[in-house]
């Protein structure tokens, strides 16, 4: 009888212990998941391309961290032959200051190391110069327009909560037309398109915004830019035509004379 009681008590203790162990295990898993979920997201990634009159560009990639803690961070940096990198601002440094860029499966990225005190909401900026971002002379098409296509592929391991591409046009240039936009604009989702054209410090800037860009997700912005100043030929031709009409068609005012 005593033995039976002892077995029951032992069994109860064992069940309680196992239950507590399982609860602790599950809780630990949740805590681990909570600790890893936030850093897996970049709250914001914004690339700014400031194009010069000669097609060179000053580029900046800015991220707002979604989680804290140290570790590696690979940022998409798809620009042709960037140089003159400035050390990253914020709680990060280049993994290899001599070679900030890394190549993964043909995608160019900046390899950063986040400092251990990095927190969610911290901003990290990487700047560089791209001497030949755009060939202004060779890309000039009819009507003096230059087609531009910017594609941002999320080559990082993190989900980008908000991705923004800003292209600041050369001084005196304007956006003539907007072509392909990915993700596609559907007026059923929003009355306004996911891109906007504005002016910043006297220069025209086109901005594209997308949300929840997962790993390998991409956003594309195609547009045409051209010199904002218009030629005088239409003005001269228009005024001349108007004048000629007034002279040639003055008999329209007489009854019986139709055009």
């Amino acid at each position, binding site marked *: 009888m005593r033995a039976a009681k002892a077995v029951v008590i032992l069994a109860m203790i064992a069940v309680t212990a196992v239950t507590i162990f399982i609860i602790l295990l599950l809780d630990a898993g949740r805590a681990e998941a909570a600790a890893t979920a936030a850093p897996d997201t970049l709250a914001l990634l914004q690339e700014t391309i400031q194009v010069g009159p000669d097609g060179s560009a000053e580029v900046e990639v800015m991220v707002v961290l979604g989680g804290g803690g140290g570790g590696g961070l690979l940022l998409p940096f798809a620009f042709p032959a960037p140089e003159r990198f400035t050390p990253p601002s914020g709680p990060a440094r280049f993994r290899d200051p001599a070679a900030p860029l890394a190549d993964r499966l043909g995608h160019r990225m900046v390899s950063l190391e986040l400092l251990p005190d990095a927190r969610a909401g911290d901003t990290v900026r990487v700047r560089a110069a791209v001497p030949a971002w755009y060939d202004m002379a060779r890309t000039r098409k*009819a*009507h003096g*327009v230059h087609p531009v296509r910017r594609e941002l592929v999320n080559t990082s391991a993190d989900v980008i909560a908000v991705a923004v591409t800003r292209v600041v046009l050369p001084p005196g240039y*304007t*956006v*003539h*037309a*907007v072509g392909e936009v990915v993700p596609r604009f559907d*007026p*059923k989702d*929003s*009355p*306004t*398109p996911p891109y*906007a*054209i*504005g*002016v910043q410090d006297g220069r*025209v800037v086109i901005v594209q915004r997308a949300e929840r860009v997962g790993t390998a997700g991409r956003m594309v912005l195609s547009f*045409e830019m*051209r010199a*904002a100043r*218009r030629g005088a030929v*239409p*003005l001269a031709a*228009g*005024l001349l*035509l*108007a*004048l000629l*009409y*007034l002279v040639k*068609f*003055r008999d*329209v*005012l*007489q*009854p019986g004379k*139709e*055009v």
Partner: protein
Amino acid sequence: MSAAEVRTQAALARIDEVLDLSRNKLSQVPEKKLTSGERWMRYLGFPLGVLVFLLLYYMPAPEGLTGGGQVVIAVFAAALVWWITEPVPTHVTSLMLMAMLVFFNGWAESDVLGVLGFSVIWLNVLAFILSSMLVKTNLAKRIALALIVRFGRKASWILAAFFALNLMLAAFIPATAARAAMLLPVMIVVAGIYGASNANPTNFGRNLFLQNLQAINFGSSAYMTGSNANLIAVAFILSMGGSRIYYTDWLFAAFPVVVTAMLISWWIGPRFVFKVPPEQQTPEVEGGLERMREKLHEMGKVTAEEKKAALIFGLVIVLWVTDKLHLRVLGFEISAVMAAFVGAVIALFPRLGLLKWNEADIPWHLMLFSCGAYAGGLALNDTGAARWLVGSLFQKLNIQPGVNFWAVYALVIAVNMYSHLFFTSKTMRTLIFIPFVIAVAQTLGYDPLWLALPAAFTIDWVIGLPINAKPNVILFATGQYSVLDNLKYGLIMTTVGTLLLIIAGCTWFRVLGITPGW
């Protein structure tokens, strides 16, 4: 032969003359007699259009608008001036517009040229083929005479009959162009009987054609299925606003507004807008209705050709009416334009059909006019210029939370109503406006239904200019009224419609729970 017999013969000959549509071919552009004011408008219209273009073209690009969009706005504005003032024929303005879009890099050449292949242009061509068949076989004449004999004692009765007919047809045929094509030959014959033709436009003719234009367009507003644009608006209200609109919700709300608008138009048109003098209020021929009755009697029994024409046209109408059943019955859907294709092929088929190609009266100048209007409208949409214009307008209005709901309501209705003057497609206008209206409602904390559904009731009010809708283009081909006539009557009725919807919003829609209740 006695004098009375001579008069009778002369009257019958006159009836034959007015009913002979081969004298008033739509494919021929008639010369118009102009008033002094119209002459000045023509003379100054061209330089004015050029100045408008140059002003908008050289203006510093507003924030948010692409350079291409600016070009399209400049070209479209100039074309609007030319379409209204008519310094050159409207179809020439369309050609100028299309050329300017390409030359100034507003829209791609391939896109501009592609407009000629649009279904709306095809529908126009095919509708005129079917219309020619009805005219050739005298079926149109018979229907028109029967209509006159039944309702033609007074001009106002015949106008009322057309309103009623349109209201009925709108319930079954959602394609407005199809309705216009159906009624066009009958309208032309009726106009002829009352002495109106493209060579001799009268106020009766203006009332007849412009009231039909209104009835075809805003008649669609009575029914949720009255036009495809209505259904798009309903889909927006569900997906963005979260409110499901049922057929009867729409019908109970919009039908009384439409009927009231039709009654007002019917009453003010011949009395105030285009005053119909007493001599135009009865059939023009001597002997009046009696002679018409004789003429109808003289036509005898319905001929085999008329029956065949009725059968072919009936088939097309059946296909138009049963469009929702096609998928279930046939496994595919026959669109309005393909239904017209079926009818036109049978009509033109040797031995089987009734029409030879040379007998088809297709006003090609009208197709070019349509192309220009559509190219301008689509370019406005494709370049984002239309969206920018609407967005800027709402931004300029600066509607902030706390503003009185009825002030916002009146503003939204007015903006939606009058905006139709600058659009060539209801669908496009719906796609741009309704989401903005829903966004405004959400920003202000209103139920989107309060603003979006009444705004949706304005979609089919496209009555201001010949470029604003497909039926407008088809009826404009008759040459019975000018662009300015259309604009004058259209603006009056747009104002009437705006006021009616505002009054309904404050009263009837509140009872129905569409706008906030008491």
